[in-house]
C-alpha cells in the first residue's frame, strides 16, 4: 500500500534550516518566527526597536528551545540590511528562508496624503523587500536553494479606501514577487506571496466593531499556512496565496 504517515512528525521538521523574519518582534512576524522555531529552525528576527525585539527573541528562544537571534535593522536602509544579512551568515553560515513581513500603513485620502507618508509606506512595504530580496537572492543563488515568502495583503488584489500608498505598495509587491521568482527560478529559489486579510495584530486594537463586521483571523492561522508553505519540498512553490476571514467583504463587488 501507499506510504501513509500515521504518526504526527513530532516537530523539528525545519531542523538545520536558517530563517530571517523581518518585523519579527510582534504580530504576524513573531507568530511565523515562533512556528519556524517550534520546528527546529534557527531564526533571525529583525525590527527597528531594540527593546521589543530582544524581548521577543528571548521569549521565543525560551518557548521553543531553538536559537532565535535579534538583529536590530531598519529594512528600508540599504547598509543596515546588508549588515543584517552579514550578521546572519556570521551566526549560522547560510540562509534557507526569508520572510518579508515588516510593513507600515498610513490612513488618509489621497487628497490629504503628505508626500512624506507616501514615501514612508512605499519604502517600508516595497523598497525594503527589494533590499532584503536582493541580498537573499545573492546568497541563495550561491546555495542553489532557498525560499522567500513576501507577506502581501488582500490590498494587493482589491483596494481599501484611505490607503493609496499601502495599496500601491502591495500591488507593487506582487510585481516584485513575480520578478524575484522569475530571476530565482534557474537556481531553484522559490519566491511566493501570501496575501492576508484582517489579522488580529496590535494594529487592530480599538477597532473591534470593524473586526466583528468584517471577520478577523488569528495570527496562528496565517503562521500555520506560512509553515505549510516552507515545509513543501525544494522545487515546489506556493506562488500566490490569499487567506481571509470567510466573512471578509472582498469576493463581491463594492
Amino acid at each position, binding site marked *: *500500500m*501507499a506510504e*501513509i*504517515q*500515521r504518526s*504526527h512528525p513530532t516537530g523539528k521538521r525545519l531542523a538545520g534550516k536558517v530563517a530571517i523574519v523581518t518585523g519579527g518582534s510582534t504580530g504576524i512576524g513573531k507568530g511565523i518566527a515562533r512556528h519556524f522555531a517550534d520546528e527546529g529552525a534557527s531564526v533571525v528576527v529583525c525590527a527597528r526597536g531594540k527593546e521589543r525585539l530582544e524581548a521577543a527573541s528571548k521569549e521565543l528562544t525560551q518557548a521553543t528551545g531553538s536559537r532565535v537571534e535579534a538583529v536590530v535593522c531598519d529594512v528600508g536602509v540599504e547598509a543596515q540590511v546588508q549588515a543584517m544579512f552579514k550578521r546572519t551568515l556570521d551566526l549560522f553560515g547560510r540562509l534557507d528562508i526569508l520572510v518579508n513581513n515588516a510593513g507600515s500603513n498610513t490612513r488618509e485620502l489621497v487628497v490629504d496624503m503628505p508626500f512624506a507618508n507616501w514615501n514612508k509606506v512605499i519604502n517600508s512595504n516595497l523598497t525594503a523587500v527589494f533590499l532584503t530580496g536582493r541580498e537573499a537572492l545573492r546568497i541563495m543563488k550561491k546555495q542553489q536553494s532557498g525560499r522567500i515568502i513576501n507577506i502581501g495583503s488582500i490590498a494587493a488584489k482589491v483596494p481599501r479606501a484611505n490607503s493609496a500608498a499601502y495599496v500601491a505598495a502591495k500591488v507593487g509587491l506582487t510585481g516584485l514577487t*513575480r520578478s524575484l*521568482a*522569475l530571476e*530565482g*527560478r*534557474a537556481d*531553484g*529559489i*522559490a519566491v511566493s506571496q501570501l496575501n492576508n486579510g484582517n489579522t488580529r495584530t496590535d494594529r487592530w486594537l480599538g477597532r473591534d466593531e470593524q473586526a466583528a463586521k468584517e*471577520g478577523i*483571523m*488569528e495570527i496562528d*492561522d496565517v503562521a*500555520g*499556512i506560512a509553515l*505549510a*508553505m516552507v*515545509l*513543501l*519540498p*525544494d*522545487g*515546489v*512553490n*506556493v*506562488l*500566490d*496565496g*490569499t*487567506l*481571509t*476571514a*470567510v*466573512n471578509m467583504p*472582498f*469576493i*463581491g463587488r463594492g
Partner: protein
Amino acid sequence: MGRLTDKVAIITGARSGIGRGIAEAFAAEGATLVLTARTKDKLETAAQEIAKGGNRVKAIVADVTDEKQVAELFRQTVEAFGRVDILVNNAGTNTRYATVDLPLSEWKRVIETNLTGPFICGREALRLMSKQKSGRIINIASISAKRPRPNAAAYVSSKFGLEGLTRSMALDGRPDNVAVCCIYPGNTWSELKIGREEQQHREGIMEAADIGAMAVAIAALPDGVNMLECEMLPVKQPFIGRG
C-alpha cells in the same frame, strides 16, 4: 489526534492522482472519507488501502456530471456519517486539440466534467453546509485558470470558469459561514501525464502528496478562515514570465 479527526470529507476523482494524494493526506490526519469516481475500478482498492490506517472510508461510485447520482452520493454520505464538512471537487479531464480541430463533443465533455460537475457537487454541499452553518469546499483548478497552454481551449475555459464558480459559491456561502476556495496546481504527477515525461523533466513536476499537504493546511484552518486562492507549481515551471 489528527488535525482532521471527526471531519467528514467527500473527494471526487479520488482513485488516483491528486484526488488520491489528498485522500491519503486527509486520512493521515484522521479524517472520515468518502471517495468517489465514475467506475469501481481502482476506487474500492484505494478505499481499502486507506482504511487500513484505521480511518472510516467509504467508496461510492458516482458520475459528478449526473445530478441524480450526485444527490445519491450526498444522501449516502449523510446516511453513513451524518454530515459533510469538506467537499474536494477534484475530478477532472482533458482533451488535446488545437481549437480549430476541437470537436464540440469533446468541448462539452470537458466543460461538463471540470465545471458542471463542481457546480452539481457544490450545490449539494452548499445545501447541507448552509444548514450546518459550517463547511468547506476545495476546488482543484489548475494554473491553466490563470494562463492558457496551447491546444487546451476546453480545459482552460473550464478552469477559468471554475474560478468564477469558486468566487460565486464563496459569496453565496458567506452568510452561512461556508468557506469555498480554489487550489491552482501546476504540473503534478498523474495518469494524465503519462507519455509526457520529457516535458515534465524540463518543466518540473510536483507529487500529488504536495497538493495533499496544502489541502490539509487549508482544511485544518478554523471555521471562519478561508484560503481563497492557493496557486502552487514547480519552481522551474514556465509560468511566471511572458510566453
